């Protein structure tokens, strides 16, 4: 199915800051407050049937972006428009009817399934939350969902511990699709799984996308997975999008040095695969009160004075391919 022009989700200048808890004494001494900039002015949109891959290392804010678009964490500022409806300041009661159409699959299938609930009760939870009580309807929907993810309806009676990691993740996916949503956030859905099981799940997710006309936001740190699954990808670094474009263009012609670093670190099975020379950073990167200039400048081998002074804006370097770098396209690590 082709990606349509109709935008299902638009996020505008989304900001999420977490205050850092400090001791009373340090509050007395220090005047500036410490704030974690998990998301800073992030704007993306996702069209119907489209998959947007969000790539970044741990701490880049990619999970916060996924949670904030569903309002599972409250954004500090910004605007979220889902299906033409501004949900940014909607009350939780009103949000219920919208939430039916937006779901999430978490990274760790073990901790995201209630160990004391039968698979049936886990899978129909989104329906119950939407107010459906008729048992017959619940059973029909659960059966359809569990079959769609490649499990059998007899397994609805079992408990989560009776399944393997890959099967548990299938249950999570069944729960996500049971209410016939339009949009699903996939937060590292395969990173805790074996390569073979990962491949099974990725093909399943693509099949479901075609069948149900779903839009995905796929959060991952694995560039190969993002490239294989996505129409467009957004690369995040310390709470900012540093590159955005079609999966083919970003992978084929990465403009930002950080994207280049990530791409060169991907190890694909092949005879010519070599380890890249990744520069070592002495301090762990932190998004507590980040510097004014380019956030990547501390790690960037091409950093100049201007990079420390001025923060680069996300500009369109080539058609539909954006990068936030003063020297976008003119530097190359590869």
């Amino acid at each position, binding site marked *: 199915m082709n990606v349509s022009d109709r935008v299902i989700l638009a996020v505008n200048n989304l900001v999420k800051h977490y205050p850092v808890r400090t001791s009373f004494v340090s509050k007395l001494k220090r005047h500036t407050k410490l704030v974690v900039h998990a998301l800073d002015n992030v704007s993306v949109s996702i069209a119907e049937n489209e998959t947007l891959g969000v790539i970044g290392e741990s701490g880049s804010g990619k999970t916060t972006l996924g949670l904030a678009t569903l309002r599972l964490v409250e954004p500090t500022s910004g605007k979220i428009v889902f299906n033409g409806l501004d949900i940014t300041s909607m009350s939780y009661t009103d949000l219920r009817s919208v939430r039916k159409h937006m779901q999430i699959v978490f990274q760790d299938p073990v901790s995201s399934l209630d160990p004391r609930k039968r698979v049936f009760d886990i899978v129909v939870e989104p329906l119950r939350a939407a107010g459906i009580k008729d048992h017959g309807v619940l059973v029909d929907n659960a059966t359809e969902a569990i079959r769609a993810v490649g499990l059998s309806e007899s397994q609805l009676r079992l408990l989560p511990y009776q399944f393997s990691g890959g099967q548990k993740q299938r249950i999570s996916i069944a729960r996500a699709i049971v209410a016939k949503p339009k949009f699903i956030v996939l937060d590292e859905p395969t990173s805790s799984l074996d390569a*073979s099981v990962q491949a099974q799940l*990725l093909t399943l997710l693509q099949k479901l996308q075609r069948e149900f006309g779903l839009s995905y936001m796929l959060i991952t740190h694995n560039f190969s997975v993002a490239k294989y699954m996505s129409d467009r990808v957004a690369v995040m670094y310390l709470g900012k999008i540093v590159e955005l474009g079609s999966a083919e263009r970003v992978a084929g012609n990465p403009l930002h040095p950080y994207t280049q670093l*990530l791409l060169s670190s991907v190890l694909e099975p092949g005879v010519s695969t070599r380890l890249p020379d990744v520069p070592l950073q002495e301090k762990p990167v932190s998004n507590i009160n980040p510097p004014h200039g380019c956030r990547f400048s501390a790690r960037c081998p091409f950093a100049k004075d201007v990079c420390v002074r001025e923060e680069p804006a996300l500009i369109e370097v080539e058609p539909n391919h954006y990068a936030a770098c003063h020297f976008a396209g003119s530097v190359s690590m590869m």
Partner: protein
Amino acid sequence: MNNEVVLETQGLSVGYKTRKGLLWAVEDVNLVVRRGEVHALVGESGCGKSTLGLSLSRLLPDFQVVYRGKIMFKGVDLVRLKESEVQRYRGNGIATIFQEPITSLNPVMRVGEQIAESLTIRSIKTYWDKVYTPEANKHLFGFSQGALLLGRARSLYIKHREEVHTLLSKVGIQDPLRVANMYPHELSGGMNQRVMIAMAIAQRPTLLVADEPTTALDVTTQAQILRLLGSLIREYGMSVLLITHDLGVVSAVANRVSVMYAGRIVEEADRKSVIENPLHPYTRGLIASFPKGTKKEVLNPIPGTVPPLGRYPPGCRFHPRCSQVFEKCRVVEPRLTEATGGRRVACHLYN
């Protein structure tokens, strides 16, 4: 690299005593690791690769485990030794690093102290007996034994400070003085894994068993850690048994590869042959599972999952998931036999 054999297992089987009886997690494994080589052990979870890795230095609890066959290391069969005798070969003979550094490090000890411990301790039991004497406990007025251990570790660190700092800079830590006084939770995953490696190489092991050392790390950190391991191998002349499920990692660092499925080795060859021309359908499936290219391409994953321990199918254990299965596979279990080019494969297609 010369051809000196560092470790050789001969028909090694490892079984767990469970309520359902004795279940063999590793069966009839003949593994040879030579000096200075990175030998990769590849397979999905549940294939027995971690059991094999841990059993090499007998790290599995003795009362739960049954061994058959031999683990030949420095001319000694480790299977026949008593626990106290095996201890002599741990640390300076065979050292192990694990997947998640944060769970392998002690959260209440500074990393410098932990490294100092690994520098000096030969046997946990004698160490414990020395630290925890009834007299010492009396003076502490019932404070925990933990307090004793912590105090002991602190003094060890002060005594061996120079060596600890050298080790930390060996693993690429720029500011060893500061890092040695930090706790594991203050360090990132990559830094913690460096600390683990520093502990493992403290006694200059002959063989390093690395059980998924980079699986929990970011790709950029993974590249750094693998580079570090590579340079340490060259410097120390160490051998590494690298347990992983990531064939990308194997392609980048391994010399030889053993592929494990359901407790048995199904293919063994040098890196180039395995990656370029895999023989066993399982190896081929693993390589095909790697997402390559963009959305237009189609992945052909191996269907199904690894059968649980003790419920292996008759015949070839891979046959229910194999795309090239034929009648013989369902009945006769293939043996690991020589194929062309010094490689071994266990599959009826090649006999």
